[in-house]
């Protein structure tokens, strides 16, 4: 972990109406980051915005020293981040937190991304692909327009291209249910409005996979409501999994106790608080005590 007060931006790309990818040059982070870890980013010096914002490491290139963040504009800080241009710099602390535990060799893996949740899972996918593991990847979004990185994910999941499924459907939303091919390493898509892939939540696709009994390890990132469903499916099928959580952060390094989430274990019967920035952001799905 390090403190890098001026990291140069190489590129900022707009991927969808409100999602951007920013790439930076920071060999130390590129060399040491593990999938699931995050960076604590001071978007501007001074008071606007005041606090750092946490973003997952989205991709790294260990040779060139490049790192990338993938983010959605949701408020003040991300709006200011979207104004950054090539040559500007960001102030970063990282890599921070506990990342994903990599699967055992040969384990059948599924990644489940809801919306911007693909950000850390893409780095995990890069790492798995590099180790010869070709997981199933389930991508969810509200609409086809909001789907992120489908092509790039397909490239990494060798051979798992399902062209028909991914073409944007006009007129017959929901008629296609992202059918399960037999190919190892499939990319499946779900949209809320059915404009691409399965119509409905991405967790429907996970339920299908789990029913097939072929998945041994699941990694998920997305909205809390989705992760809660993922955790209950994993419990029902007795499958291991990890989830990446979000909480509002102050320090990002374990000092302020702002970012806690409820987990099982610890001194108390019902729950104990653990820090998302230090003991997380990745937790075993079964360890999390989910709220309403």
């Amino acid at each position: 972990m390090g403190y890098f007060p001026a990291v140069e931006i190489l590129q900022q790309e707009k991927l969808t109406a409100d999602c951007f990818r920013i790439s930076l040059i920071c060999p130390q982070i590129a060399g040491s980051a593990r999938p699931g870890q995050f960076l604590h980013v001071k978007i501007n010096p001074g008071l606007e915005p005041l606090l750092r914002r946490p973003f997952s490491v989205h991709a790294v290139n260990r040779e060139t020293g490049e790192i990338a963040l993938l983010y959605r504009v949701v408020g003040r800080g991300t709006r200011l981040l979207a104004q950054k241009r090539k040559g500007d710099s960001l102030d970063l602390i990282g890599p921070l937190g506990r990342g994903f535990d990599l699967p055992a060799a040969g384990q059948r893996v599924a990644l489940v991304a809801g919306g911007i949740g693909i950000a850390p899972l893409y780095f995990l996918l890069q790492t798995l692909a590099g180790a010869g593991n070709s997981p199933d990847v389930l991508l969810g979004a509200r609409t086809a327009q909001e789907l992120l990185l489908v092509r790039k994910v397909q490239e990494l999941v060798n051979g798992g291209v399902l062209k028909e499924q991914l073409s944007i459907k006009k007129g017959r939303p929901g008629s296609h249910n992202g059918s399960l091919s037999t190919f190892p390493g499939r990319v499946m898509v779900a949209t809320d409005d059915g404009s691409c892939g399965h119509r409905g939540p991405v967790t429907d696709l996970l339920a299908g996979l789990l029913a097939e009994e072929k998945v041994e390890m699941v990694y998920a990132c997305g909205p809390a409501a989705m992760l809660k469903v993922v955790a209950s499916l994993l419990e029902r099928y007795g499958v291991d999994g990890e989830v990446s959580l979000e909480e509002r952060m102050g320090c990002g390094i374990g000092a302020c106790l702002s970012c806690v989430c409820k987990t099982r274990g610890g001194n108390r019967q019902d729950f104990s608080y653990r820090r998302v920035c230090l003991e997380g952001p990745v937790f075993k799905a079964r360890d999390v005590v989910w709220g309403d």
Partner: protein
Amino acid sequence: MKKPNLAVEIAGLKLKNPVLTASGTFGFGAEYTPFLDLNRLGAVVVKSLTLKPREGNPTPRLVETPAGILNSIGLQNPGVDSFLTEHFPSLRQFATPVIVSIAGNTVEEYAAVAEKLSRAAGIAALEVNISCPNVEQGGLQFGADPAGAAEVTRAVKGATGLPVIVKLSPNVTSIAEIAWAVAEAGADALSLINTLTGMAIDVHRRRPVLGNLTGGLSGPAVRPVAVRAVWEVYRVVRVPIIGMGGIVCAADALEFILAGARAVAVGTANFLNPRATIEILEGIEHYLEENEIADINELVGAAHIF
């Protein structure tokens, strides 16, 4: 010119410089060792400890507001015993005094925590937090009135031989009156200010943002309030003051010193810049050199004309 003197004395403690960390923003010190050398700090003030571990408040516990943050951590801490066995041994290794902040539900609990800490060797002083706005008990119900504040102070003084610093709340009609009462009760120094009670409402959800509904405001937004508090208290009590509230740079720290603080503590700024304490320290030193001031103590209260 020879290097200016930065050493100050607070409650009988000799500190190598006047830059401290604010309780609750610096964990137990170890969190910041990747970023700075703890040996360089005037003192480390750790998160408030209670007799038994505390879980703290529901989330969200933090929200950014204009030039500030609202927090409602609610004194989550591992308890005094676990601090002594798990966190203190490594923190002690540094050549920097460790000031332990304490809190309690009752006067007896404050005294009990103070007593436990006094039996452990190596603690430099206690900071008595009677000013946390985020707990139902043990915070403001003592800090908000002179009699309650004095009672806790006396109880802690009676339970320990360590220097006792009492941390005051700005959420009162007259902080000077409380400072006076606490000083009379035997406090060796005062810390001010703790956070200001505040609130933020999410207009989309139409609900308060924080899980605890209200929280404590800190950061640059509170600095003018804090400087005024130090100014007022300096005029009525002779015990040394540790000033804090929104300090992010050396000039901010100097405002407090000129208002009457003998030392300063850095809180929220640690979240923005993990090296804030060191940069503030270097900035103060630079200011002294540039203005040919031989000793930081010459500046304490220098903005007052009596």
